[in-house]
């Protein structure tokens, strides 16, 4: 595959190129791919590997010339996770980083738009982390709020 030849490492997975990257070299690799036809940034996704104490960020890129999908996987420690922002390469990365910051609590250095995005007034553990106990949270918040009304016929 073109991208694997270009970067010099990685493997083919289900018809896509999967390349594991160190956080330091990510910027250069995205830049190199962008210059060589991979100019469509598809999405940025995040995986929480709780047992390994790692976060994995996956940068998906697509080339219209060779019709090839590249996944760049970056792993980082789970505690105080932070990454340099890539939003200067593709502007849409800013919004993906904003969402991941809200849902996983990863800091993106250089992105100054990490404001609340989808959640309303959230003060707790970021909800998509594996150690967030959703059921316990629901019991604490929503189930503890009482029903209103004295008898059943009132207002139906």
């Amino acid at each position, binding site marked *: 595959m073109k991208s694997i030849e270009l970067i010099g490492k990685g493997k083919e997975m289900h018809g896509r190129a999967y390349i594991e990257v160190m956080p330091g070299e990510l910027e250069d690799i995205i830049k190199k791919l962008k210059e060589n036809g991979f100019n469509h940034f598809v999405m940025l996704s995040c995986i929480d590997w709780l047992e390994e104490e790692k976060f994995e960020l996956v940068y998906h890129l697509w080339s219209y010339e060779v019709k090839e999908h590249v996944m760049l996987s970056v792993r980082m420690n789970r505690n105080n996770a932070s990454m340099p922002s890539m939003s200067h390469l593709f502007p849409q990365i800013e919004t993906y980083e904003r969402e991941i910051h809200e849902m996983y609590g990863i800091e993106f250095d250089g992105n100054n738009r990490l404001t609340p995005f989808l959640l*309303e007034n959230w*003060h707790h*553990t970021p*909800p998509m982390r594996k150690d*967030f106990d959703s059921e316990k*949270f629901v019991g604490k*918040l929503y189930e503890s709020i*009482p029903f*209103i009304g004295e008898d059943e016929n009132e*207002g139906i």
Partner: protein
Amino acid sequence: MGLYIGDKMMKYEEWSKLARKVSKKSLWMLHFCTGCGAIEMPPVMTSRYDMERFGIAPMATPRQADVLLITGYLTVKTLRRVIQVYEQMQSPKYVIAFGSCTINGGMYWDSYNTIKHLEKYIPVDVYIAGCMPRPEGIINAFIKLMELIDEGKARGWEKYQKYYDKYKENQRRVFNFEIEGENEEY
């Protein structure tokens, strides 16, 4: 207290009974389309099921509407908007809640972000069970609401006035939820 029609005085109770009988035949509906329920509304509105047969018409603004139709799950963020819309409506006003999600959370029962029981935040007159309810179910719920209005049982808006403080307290709790004790983790 009463109202003169010709030289005959109608008592307030009689008048409100007549008013209910008439107003139930022209329910103007504001459909607050959240979640997946919105997809069931076009068939109900358009020629196949044609809800205007029953005097139900979609309305553009909350101030013109009698019925607030909530079509599916609500996140905390949307609930804030729903309450604004509900409080803009003029009395008498009714709420129809649509689908399992508004009853007890439905398939989002353990989600961190959807409120589970709509009834805790605004009064609900009629629930439609199902995930999703069919258009027939929606029309059936409107007919049920008409019966309740006719019998004087659809009194959700009076309940909201009566327990206003309690509703506000519940709403405040869900909007400003803070962890009790700083070290508690979720």
